[in-house]
């Protein structure tokens, strides 16, 4: 769906992106992970031509974006930024309707679409439609930003640190919301973040950037595996990498059949990390799994996890 081919970007003396090649398959949520200044945002903004690469090319559905009119291109790509950038002189509904209006949809279709999207991002349309952006909290504003990006049903969504400015609880809520929306709508999403936890919570694939180079790319487990280059391990935090790996593993994939009398109960969908924390908290060496069949997870399974 999105393909970077030997893409470079140079600002005067500074080489922001150096020969990056990789692809994001259709329907995949790919997280571009890296520290600030690693070139991840620059790479993202090349997809909708907010930045033109100084070398290489970016393909969208097999077509070089350099050959597509930037306005047409951008109206077909959802775009969400950290600062949200809602238009303060427009109501929530008008903000969400921006792209459909540019595309010339009729009023009835726009109104129906706006209500549907507000409901989808968890904002009651009747209550929020007429509100001004200034009256929204940070989390609500970013929900509107997400609805605005999805308004014309673009197949691709670009998100530049969308949740970084929000407090942790709001951030987790919106991450869960995004996962749900992604599962339901099957968009191809490229999301930039510097937060490893966020990458693990969201990603189907992770691409790690460092000093303009792509240093690792693949499914989260492969990127966080023991064979990961030392530089990537250092960047992700070697001492916490093991925990991050455990976060990427679902406990039920490692569970053994049978009861574990007296063991604490792990909530459905819990990760290996959750299980380990549960055992630490309760001072036990096993956890019981929620579900119909009796299953439990011993500590040895965590230690033996690949």
């Amino acid at each position: 769906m999105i393909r970077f081919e030997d893409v470079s970007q140079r600002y005067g003396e500074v080489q922001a992106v150096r020969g990056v090649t990789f692809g994001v398959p259709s329907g995949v949520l790919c997280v571009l992970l890296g520290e600030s200044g690693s070139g991840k945002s620059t790479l993202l903004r090349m997809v909708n031509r907010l930045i033109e690469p100084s070398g290489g090319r970016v393909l969208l559905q097999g077509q070089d974006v350099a050959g597509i009119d930037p306005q047409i291109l951008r109206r077909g790509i959802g775009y969400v930024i950290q600062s949200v950038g809602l238009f303060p002189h427009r109501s929530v509904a008008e903000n969400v309707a921006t792209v459909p209006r540019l595309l010339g949809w009729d009023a009835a279709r726009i109104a129906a679409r706006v209500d549907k999207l507000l409901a989808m991002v968890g904002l009651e349309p009747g209550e929020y439609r007429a509100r001004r952006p200034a009256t929204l909290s940070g989390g609500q504003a970013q929900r509107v930003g997400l609805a605005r990006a999805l308004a014309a049903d673009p197949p691709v969504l670009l998100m530049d640190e969308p949740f970084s400015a929000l407090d942790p609880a709001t951030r987790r809520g919106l991450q869960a919301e995004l996962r749900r929306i992604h599962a339901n709508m099957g968009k191809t999403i490229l999301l930039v973040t510097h937060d490893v936890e966020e990458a693990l919570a969201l990603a189907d694939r992770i691409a790690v950037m460092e000093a303009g180079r792509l240093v690792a790319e693949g499914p989260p487990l492969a990127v966080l595996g023991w064979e990961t280059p030392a530089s990537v391990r250092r960047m992700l935090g070697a001492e916490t990498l093991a925990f991050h790996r455990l976060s990427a593993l679902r406990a039920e994939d490692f569970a053994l059949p049978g009861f574990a009398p007296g063991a604490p109960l792990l909530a459905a969908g819990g990760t290996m990390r959750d299980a380990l924390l549960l055992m630490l908290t309760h001072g036990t060496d096993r956890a019981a799994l929620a579900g119909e069949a009796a299953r439990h997870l011993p500590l040895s399974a965590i230690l033996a996890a690949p």
Partner: protein
Amino acid sequence: MKKAALWLALGAVAFLAALWAAPQAEGLWSALFPEVSRPAYVQESWFVLLGSHLALSLGAALLAAMLGIPAGIAATRSSGRALRPVVDAAFTLAQSVPPVAVIALALPLLGFGAAPTLLALVLYGALPLLRATVTGIESVPAQITEAARGLGLSPWQRLTRVELPLARPVLLAGLRVAVTLSVATTAVGAVAGARCLGTPIIIGLTNANPSYVLQGALFTAWLALLLDRALSLLAGPQSSP
């Protein structure tokens, strides 16, 4: 808001009543200036003077807006950045030359009357509008223009749907300054023979009649204040979010 409009209307009525009463108030003027033999200005109707004063100053403000606002927009486009210092310098120069000097310099070319006055007023008023346009557009937060770009608004749509609406309070404030300045400065046009509320001032100065000077100055200032209030009333509701 309603109350302010009412006060403004009352002020305008009082102003017009004073214009009507001035030629008749011989007693008042002679009490103020006992040494002047004919203290009431009766050569021309004050309403004729008011009409041509307004035509001249508002026309000049309109022309200044047609010059300053597009120049300000051009200076804030990415393609116009290079032009910015040149535009700024030209407009600053235009404002730093006093209107009287512009009139004097323009007299040989444009002759007596309204034309040199109009030129001076336009040059004088264009800078505040240029500045206001640039300030207003630059006050639009970068993330909002970035979002507009990312959503696929064309440069023209970004200007008309995002930048100008958000720059509006600052722009209107600049317009208010320009109009008030223009109305107050138009009186200078009387030097070049442009008919306006400044005419009695010039006649009074040349004929040693301080009563005429006072009346001309009074009505010029009164008009400028009234228009300033009217424009602030117009700009007021939009400036609050």
